[in-house]
């Protein structure tokens, strides 16, 4: 079991958390203007990278707040966790550059 670093509560056990899929998938600005294809993309399509992935987690049995994490889907290692709206941490940007 992993320790996941909640940006508010600090490191807590994995069982306290709930996974929320890809981060920063924004609701469309003008929903009525979307084509069927664009709706399909918004509702059903998500990235599925083999490597660093920015995703949402919630500290479900702790502070119950949502936060963002960048996790490597090959190793499951959390490269960083950060509050929603904060910039992606530098360590993750460097990691992504190395991977690319």
């Amino acid at each position, binding site marked *: *079991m992993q320790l996941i670093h909640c940006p508010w509560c600090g490191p807590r056990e*994995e*069982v306290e958390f*709930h*996974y929320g899929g890809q981060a920063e998938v924004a609701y469309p600005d003008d929903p009525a203007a979307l084509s069927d294809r664009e709706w399909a993309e918004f*509702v059903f*399509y998500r990235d599925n*990278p*083999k490597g660093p992935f920015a995703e949402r987690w919630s500290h479900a049995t702790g502070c119950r707040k949502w936060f963002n994490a960048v996790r490597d*889907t090959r190793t499951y290692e959390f490269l960083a966790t950060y509050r929603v709206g904060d910039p992606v941490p530098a360590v993750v940007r460097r990691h992504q550059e190395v991977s690319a």
Partner: protein
Amino acid sequence: MSTPGAHLPEHPDFLWRNPEPRKTYDVVIIGGGGHGLATAHYLAKNHGITNVAVLEKGWLAGGNMARNTTLIRSNYLWDESAAIYEHSLKLWEGLEEDLGYPILFSQRGVLNLAHTEQDVRDSVRRVEANKLNGVDAEWVSPEQVKEICPIVNISGDIRYPVQGATYQPRAGIAKHDYVAWGFARRADEAGIDLIQDCEVTGFTVDGDRVTGVRTSRGDIGAGTVALCAAGHTSVLLEMLGVRTPLQSHPLQALVSELLKPVHPTIVMSNAVHVYVSQAHKGELVMGAGVDAYNGYGQRGAFHIIERQMAAAVELFPVFARAHLLRSWAGIVDVTPDASPIVGHTPYENVFVNSGWGTGGFKATPGIGWCYAHTIAHGEPHPYVAPFALDRFVTGALVDEHGAAAVAH
């Protein structure tokens, strides 16, 4: 039930050739698991197409084919799913003869337990849908569950009491390695090249056609490319700039030590997330739902196993003293409607077979048959046509979350 292991066949003295890849093939199948090998077999057998390579990045059938729980059933809810899975089950029933190879197909039946009033309603509905589709199915009471599988705890005192079950007597298990080897041997005999240790790293493209694949063993030209890469499908299609609504998750399974025959059928429970059968040698084979997060690591989180074992021991108190022998994970490709994605891609000579999620093994001969037809004719076989990628745009989903049986 006979003595466990008594009927395991001898290993053959010859498996298949291990050829160098040629410069070009009419069909290049990416993925040397069950689906890729079955597709190769039926391309040769049903369509006479043998200028084919099956590329496998590791060793043949060493991915999900070696990591699954080998359950075979066709009791899905919707007509589209019943058609493909029942086609597959009928092929399983003649597969040993077709392949000329033992696969230890054992039709011991499956019980899908219901634990709540809503479970009961959904289950009875599914039984009636199955009957209308010519799939064998019946609704059985808790007492009948006990008759079919005496070690199930049908007490009313447990957290999720058994309220009954659907029963498909023709369901069963098979020996996954032998299934793969049977398909591989027939494909090899037909002249198809099975190329191991050959990872696809890219594609060569000319307009809306793919002309070949780049691999760790050099470039290979291809008339048609057919993906059979399960959890890695979206990684491959990403190289072509094609997005799919697939998410890759670890799906864990485990086995106990070898035990005497105690479990004569298959028991699945959607609500408490465990399913169990007893392998030919005697291991209890158990699976659960997928791990929640995306992953490619072929392992999962321990707390998933802990919850699965808690459910198993409540349903089967006799398991409490069984020892866990080993656990593992496959990487499954999950879709939003829990149904596969098969057929055309935006590239006219690239076909996709993916999204089987937790249920790909049972489909092996059926999808091999239909995918070979799709490749040979350049158009989807009628059984796979409903599973086209464009259903996520048209909205014609095949929602099998209920009948897919485990959470994903």
